[in-house]
């Protein structure tokens, strides 16, 4: 699974992209966030701002209950500021 980060979420994640092996018990975005938070405290900091974090799966907006698969491309990013 590919995870992408943008804007200040990328700064906190210290990378714009990473590849992770999806554990069996990670079924949806909520599970993925818990998994990442346990893995490294930088994710704890990112997801402490959960109300600001937008989520996309395969380049479409989803919410935290969205089911994910091992070949998905996930992205976490803050509210957009283009235009």
């Amino acid at each position: 699974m590919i995870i992408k980060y943008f804007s200040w979420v990328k700064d906190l994640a210290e990378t714009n992209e990473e590849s992770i092996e999806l554990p069996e018990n990670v079924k949806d975005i909520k599970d993925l966030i818990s998994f990442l938070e346990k893995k490294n405290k930088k994710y704890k900091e990112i997801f402490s701002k959960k109300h600001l974090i937008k989520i996309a799966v395969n380049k479409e907006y989803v919410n935290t209950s969205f089911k994910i698969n091992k070949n998905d491309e996930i992205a976490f990013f803050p509210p957009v500021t283009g235009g």
Partner: protein
Amino acid sequence: MNVITPKIKIQNADFDTNYENNNLIVKNSGALVNFVGTVRGNLQSSEKILSMTLEHYPGMTENEILNIVNKAIKKWEIENVTVIHRVGKLFPRDNIVYVGVSSRHRQNAFDACNFIIDWLKTNAPFWKSEEIEGAKNWVKARDEDTLALKKWDN
């Protein structure tokens, strides 16, 4: 409803409003509305902006803009649409975004153009950072941009 092939481009290069407008004018348009967003010269605090860098999520950006444009095409009778958004490093007064809509009756072009930029501002995955003297800051999302969507609620 016309069959429309919207033009959507994400690019570092500047755009040419005359050229884009000319391409939007079809036989019976009559009315054309543009929104052009540009880099401001300073912050609310009046601090000078040296430059601005725009990043985006390639692939998702184009999808989101196409979604927005398709909603506008369903909602209003329009003839043609173009959306161009620049990315990379930009300087005060530089163009950032062009939204052009042509229609037979002007109110449709006004509303569709306004709707597209309102949705683009809150949904298209672009992020601005501003370089001011000695610092580089990610721009915060504006609550006004989310509130602006309320007018399309009906």
